[in-house]
């Protein structure tokens, strides 16, 4: 039988030592420490945990419990921290993990395609045959912009449909390449933002995602139909075909990820709704991340290649190759080196990563 004060006196040096570890390593990760230091740290973590259990069971005071509790909690947080990542992780994600996750959840993508491309096609067909209907979908000022845009120069992009529908394009008027850089920034800001929002709103039972997909589909279709009906078909199609490959596909990919979130809540299966949301959510966000990467590529193509002055034929052929690349990438990337088929980079909620961070 030991009394409280003797216990504190005896254990205090170890607690202080442990505190030093916490403050010393709070700025950097544990993996930068020497091997024996890590050993000592893990030993101390177990000892302090044991002290906490001892004090709890003896009822030796609230202050002492909360102090040791915080000590262990911080140590725990540090000890089980993930090893730092680097560029190779990003490469692995783009080349393997994203396409695999995408294929594992292809049904959601196909549903999103239906919700996006079907309204696009219908509204394109309808508006091209009845151009007067375009004004019901497209705001007035944007309509007039298209008319002027295609009558003098074809530099700007007609299809950056934003949810507000009235994003005014920034004015950059110096050299040609310089102006394109502005547009690249604009497309990244606008399009990736819309796709991410389209994904995130999926958590509202998928309603937000469905709305965004339908709206953008109808809008883009109406714009395409209207511009072609005004006789700018060649210029317009040769402009959109290249970046459309990445952009339109990525919108559907992000939409599919959003539908995953919503569906996890609607059909949780054997899990509770919250568990289901967590498991599916971690996969969904990794798919949405891939869509964001694709949209950045699309923005660069749209800004630097699509408006260039080469012949429409060349643009059509390059555009077709790009469509093929997108298809091959999503269909086959990471297929051959499929060792496990399990690509979740995160330990599931049930697992406990009980290993030392690799030094």
């Amino acid at each position, binding site marked *: 039988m030991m009394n409280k004060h003797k216990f504190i006196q005896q254990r205090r040096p170890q607690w202080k030592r442990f505190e030093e570890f916490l403050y010393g390593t709070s700025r950097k990760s544990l993996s930068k420490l020497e091997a024996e230091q890590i050993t000592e740290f893990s030993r101390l973590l177990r000892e302090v945990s044991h002290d906490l259990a001892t004090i709890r069971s003896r009822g030796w005071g609230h202050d002492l419990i909360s102090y040791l509790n915080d000590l262990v909690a911080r140590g725990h947080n540090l000890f089980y921290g993930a090893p730092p990542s680097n560029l190779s992780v990003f490469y692995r994600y783009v080349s393997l993990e994203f396409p695999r996750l995408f294929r594992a959840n292809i049904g959601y993508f196909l549903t999103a395609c239906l919700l996006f491309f079907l309204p696009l096609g219908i509204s394109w067909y309808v508006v091209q045959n009845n151009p007067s209907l375009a004004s019901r979908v497209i705001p007035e000022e944007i309509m007039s912009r298209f008319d002027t845009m295609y009558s003098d120069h074809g530099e700007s992009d007609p299809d950056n449909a934003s949810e507000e529908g009235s994003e005014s394009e920034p004015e950059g008027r110096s050299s040609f390449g310089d102006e394109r850089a502005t547009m*690249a920034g604009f497309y990244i800001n606008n399009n990736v933002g819309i796709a991410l929002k389209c994904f995130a709103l999926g958590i509202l039972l998928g309603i937000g995602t469905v709305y965004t997909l339908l709206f953008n589909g109808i809008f883009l279709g109406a714009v395409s139909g209207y511009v072609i009906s005004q006789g700018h078909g060649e210029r317009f199609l040769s402009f959109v075909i290249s970046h459309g490959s990445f952009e339109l596909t990525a919108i559907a990919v992000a939409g599919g990820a959003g539908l995953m979130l919503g569906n996890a809540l609607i059909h949780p299966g054997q899990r509770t709704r919250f568990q289901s949301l967590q498991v599916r959510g971690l996969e969904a966000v990794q798919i949405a991340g891939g869509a964001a990467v694709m949209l950045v590529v699309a923005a660069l193509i749209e800004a630097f290649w699509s408006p260039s002055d080469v012949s429409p034929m060349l643009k059509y052929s390059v555009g077709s190759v790009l469509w093929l690349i997108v298809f091959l990438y999503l269909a086959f990337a990471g297929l051959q080196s499929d060792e496990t088929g399990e690509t979740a980079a995160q330990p599931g909620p049930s697992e406990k990563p009980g290993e030392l961070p690799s030094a």
Partner: protein
Amino acid sequence: MATATSELDLAQTSAVYQEEVYSNQPRKLSLDMQIETPENVILTYQLAGPAQRYLAYLIDLIIRMVVMIGLLMFVMPMMSLVLPGTALGLFLVLMFLNTWGYYTISEGFFKGQSIGKHFCGIRVIREGGYPITFWPAVLRNLVRSADAIMFYGIGITSMLLTRRFQRLGDLAAGTVVIQERSLKLPRKPVILDKIKPLDKNEIGSFLPRDEVLSLIDEFIGRRHVLTYERGHALAGILAQNLADRLHYSGDPKKVTHYPMAFLAAVYKTFSFSQAEEEQDVVSEYLKQSGFGEFHDE
């Protein structure tokens, strides 16, 4: 035993003590979250409430605005002299990163703390007590745009409806926001040298439990945060209780007029001599009941 617990309960309700992990009472509404570590120790985390999180959000918002306005005011004109279009494009990319990347990058790479959270002493961790990693950080901050509908009305509603104050992003990513108190080892309690232990002749054979002694220890250690009257009143309850329990036959004024001193005396009496006393009592008992001879057979 039960009587000692009732004392403890009295003192606890008066001093707003939190219930312990091992109690079997129904859970109260509280900001506590308990997890069990692989070392089989139960850790208690203090969740951060909506107000704290809102404050952190405001700080972050101000920082983000100031950075963007600063870029617009100083950097842009300088760059515009050289490459106006590129400067504008870069600005738009930065604006995108500011909108979608600020929280993700800060929480994903700086151990779950954005600048505002750091100032408020709160941190994002995963529900199992593990540090937050990259993808959960991305997820929780993309869903932020859904939480932000109606001035964070959705997020706040979700926080109030969940046991761990989680907004939708937290629910999806399996994260919680906790408070981090500053680590401080409880002070050494009062110097007990001047306190005389109680006279053995004035008390019965009752032994207070460790919890009661710890309670006295902490109460005396914290007595300066209470006003004198309040401290006196609180100490009076426990002192009177203990005096009855101990069949204290000394000066009753010591209990009613100087309850703090009485408690300190009780503490001194039992906390330092207890171990030896117990030993003595046990061996005495063994001798009396003839166990000594019994063992020798």
